[in-house]
Each structure stands twice: as structure tokens, then as C-alpha cells.
């Protein structure tokens, strides 16, 4: 089995995470640092010569899934902020609409 280029894999995952982590979301900033450390330790661990090469191959195949999950968490952080904004907007729209409707009902 060819030697794993840990640095190359890690750099690629860090790049992907940095692109998705919005710096103004506190959860994202904290998670980004955490994921980078976690990915670094996990990928470095795969270079352990005591591991079976077939096992290493299997676990490398899961790296894309793990990155997918990490990126999805940034999506959740962002959507939570969007939800707060949307809640306020929806409330405001409903209030405005109800005011108009009340006038309509009174006039009818």
C-alpha cells in the first residue's frame, strides 16, 4: 500500500472546512479549530505501522463522510441564525397582515 500523504489529506480537509465555516458565527469558529485538531489526530493515527493496511484503506474511505458531516454542522449553525432572522420576519409579516385583516373585517 502506498504511504499515506497525511499532510496533503489534512490540508485538503482544512481548506474545505475553512471555506464553509462562516467566521462571524461563534459556533463555527470553535468547531473549525476543534475539527482541525480532530482530523489531524485521526489522520496521523492512520499512519501507525501497527494498523492493518486493509483497515487503513477502509477508514480512509470514510474520510469523505466525516468531512461531509463536519461541513453539515456549519450548515446547521448558519441555518439557526437564518431561522432567528426568519422568525422575526414571519412574525412581522403576520402582524402586518393581521392589522390589515382586522380593518377589513371591521369594515365588512
Amino acid at each position, binding site marked *: 500500500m502506498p504511504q499515506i500523504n497525511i499532510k496533503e489529506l489534512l490540508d485538503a480537509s482544512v481548506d474545505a472546512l475553512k471555506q464553509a465555516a462562516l467566521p462571524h458565527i461563534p*459556533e463555527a469558529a470553535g*468547531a473549525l479549530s*476543534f*475539527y482541525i485538531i*480532530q*482530523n489531524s*489526530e*485521526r489522520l496521523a*493515527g*492512520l499512519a*501507525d505501522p*501497527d*494498523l*492493518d493496511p486493509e*483497515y487503513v484503506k*477502509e*477508514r480512509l474511505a*470514510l474520510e469523505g*463522510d*466525516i468531512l*461531509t*458531516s*463536519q461541513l*453539515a*454542522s456549519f*450548515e*446547521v*449553525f448558519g*441555518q*439557526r441564525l*437564518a*431561522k432567528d432572522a*426568519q*422568525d422575526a420576519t*414571519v412574525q412581522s*409579516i*403576520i402582524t402586518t*397582515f393581521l392589522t390589515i*385583516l382586522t380593518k*377589513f373585517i371591521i369594515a365588512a
Partner: protein
Amino acid sequence: MKKTFLFIALIAGLLSCNKYTVQSKVQMDILERAYDNAKSIYTQMNTGNRAYPVYESTYNLVALQIDSVYNNDLSRNSNSALLREDKVLIKVWSAIQNYHRGRGQLNAATAEQERKTMESAFTPRLKSEQSIK
């Protein structure tokens, strides 16, 4: 009557747009229990016994708990990002269990690497749940 119906339909429409994430204490509890159970496997393996049969019931319990999280997310109108995390968690846990089952016994290095893999699969889902307020 027609106008009242239209009004109700409009409000329902506006509310149905609000489908991002919904806080759930039950989900958080199940997730935390699953994570604690998964961690307990590796704590116990540190004592030296790494034979699969010792851990089979805990593996199965964690699998049931994370399946339950996924099913709850499907029914609680959760967003697709949470569902994606659930699917990854289920896939990774299944890979971890299948490997151990197939080998029967893990060496210390593999057990430690499996712990790191488990942590990496649980962390995003836990962080997402914690962020939902």
C-alpha cells in the same frame, strides 16, 4: 367565508416556511447517551480485553440509539444537514462494529484509531444539536 379560508391558508403557508431546526431535549438526551455508551467501549478496551463478544450488546445499543435519533429527525421536521449527519454517524458506527465483529479481536493501535473515528463521527452531530436553541 372564502376570505377567511384564504387567510388561514396564507398563515399556514407562512408558518410552513419556518422549517429549519427544532430544539428537542429528547434528541439531545438520546445522542448524549449514545455517545457515552460508545465512549465506554473504548474505556473498557483500555483494560486489555478487546474481544468483540464483550462489546456486542453495547455496539447494538448505540446502533439502536443513533437509529432512533435519525428517525426522530425525520419526524421532527429536521433540516437536511442534520439528517446527513445522522446518516454518516450510522454508516461510521456500522463500519466500526462490522470491522470488530469480523476481526473478533482488536489490537491496541486499532482500538485507539477506532475511538478517534467514533469521536469524529459523533462530534459534528453533537455540536449541531447543541447549537439549536
